């Protein structure tokens, strides 16, 4: 359990001395988080059971006058009756716990859609080769407009490596946080000022668990799995591979040296997610890089179509 993770630990975004040192309005809303559900009570009932002498101490709130010849259930604020919970003081919420993150993600998605930009959220264990893959991808894509958001707990090493290729990059340090969230990515996108029809690569914190639940507004999650990690990794961490659209089986040049069974990797990925697309790649030798770049270009082209 990651009890230390969470947004309050203060993400750091490159070039900003600490989180939120810049002025912005934290109450900007990306949707209505306090929505209410109108509902009607069409039923009527009458029954005149006796209550004897006892007093009703219950309160119906809301200026609700009535005599005690029958009880109302389902007319509290919640519109439901729950045994053990007193009426009219039950507030039905039905709100997703991640509603706030999802609202930020939706806002990011709108910005990307307006630019016809295609964003991928790269997720993997630490050390799967995400940054090397990205550097090689940037080289292979030539003059395609693109930008990179790098997420790590500490250091700007990865953004420095990306910038060395000439690409624009923003490093987000999550501090103790174990994942990027929609809010951090929104601020990083503000800094990047994406060109129309850009590719945006969001390199998430190396972690196969937490980032699965946090929508960033991306078009697709891409899971990167290197051949040294073990064929059963998709079975051990199913949530991430279920959430991913594409899996890159990386470092395939090492497969002969570590007895890796590439077909077993692929079978386990498909078992967890029958829809997942699997590409076998070596960022080091360049094998499979064409297929990966073609997939990115196809995603971008699909985004630009009306």
């Amino acid at each position, binding site marked *: *359990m*990651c*009890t*230390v*993770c*969470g*947004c*309050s630990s203060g993400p750091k975004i490159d070039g900003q001395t600490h989180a939120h040192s810049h002025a912005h309005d934290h109450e900007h809303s990306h949707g209505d*988080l*306090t929505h209410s559900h109108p509902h009607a009570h069409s039923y009527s009932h009458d029954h005149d059971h006796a209550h004897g002498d006892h007093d009703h101490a219950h309160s119906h709130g809301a200026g609700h006058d009535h005599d005690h010849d029958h009880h109302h259930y389902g007319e509290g*604020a*919640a519109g*439901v009756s*729950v045994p053990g*919970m*007193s009426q009219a*003081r*039950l*507030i*039905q*919420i*039905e*709100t*997703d*716990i*991640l*509603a*706030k*993150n999802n609202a930020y993600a939706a806002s990011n998605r709108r910005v990307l859609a307006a630019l016809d930009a295609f964003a991928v959220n790269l997720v993997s264990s630490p050390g799967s080769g995400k940054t090397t893959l990205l550097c090689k991808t940037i080289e292979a894509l030539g003059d395609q407009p693109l930008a990179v958001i790098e997420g790590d707990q500490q250091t700007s090493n990865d953004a420095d490596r990306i910038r060395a290729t000439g690409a624009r990059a923003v490093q987000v340090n999550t501090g103790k*946080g*174990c*994942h990027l*969230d929609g809010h951090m990515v929104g601020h990083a996108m503000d800094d990047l000022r994406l060109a129309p029809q850009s590719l945006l690569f969001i390199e998430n914190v190396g972690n196969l*668990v*937490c980032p*699965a*639940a*946090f929508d960033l507004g991306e078009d697709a999650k891409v899971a990167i799995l290197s051949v040294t990690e073990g064929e059963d990794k998709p*079975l051990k961490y*199913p*949530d991430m591979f*279920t959430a991913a659209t594409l899996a890159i089986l990386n470092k395939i040049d090492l497969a002969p040296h570590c007895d890796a069974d590439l077909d077993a990797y692929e079978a386990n990925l*498909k*078992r*967890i*997610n*029958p*829809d997942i697309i699997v590409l076998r790649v070596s960022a080091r030798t360049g094998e499979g890089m064409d297929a990966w770049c073609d997939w990115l270009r196809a995603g971008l082209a699909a985004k630009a179509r009306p």
Partner: protein
Amino acid sequence: MHEMSLAEGIRQIIDTQAAAHGFQRVTALRLEIGRFAGVEKPALEFALDVVLRGSSAEGAAVEMIDLPGRALCYDCGEAFEIADRLDPCPLCGSGKIMPQGGDEMRIKDMEVI
């Protein structure tokens, strides 16, 4: 997984609701957690205990309602409940199944005074 972040999300929602409904205190809180939501319930309980301190929901009774996992079999096309992510299809035995539900994490309702 990220229970502290979830607890903070819950507190934000409660704070928003407190402003909207004008209540003083939350006495009970009911959450719905899907089987495949990746939420470790004891960890969330621990995180809520810490995060709700000083809020209107400090000390509230927290009930977590389990929602079942559902999946669709890609071979026989049937949808069904599954207990484990790696279970085969109970109807045809296929291993090609895709989760279709059970990733919910919601605040269902709360009792306030």
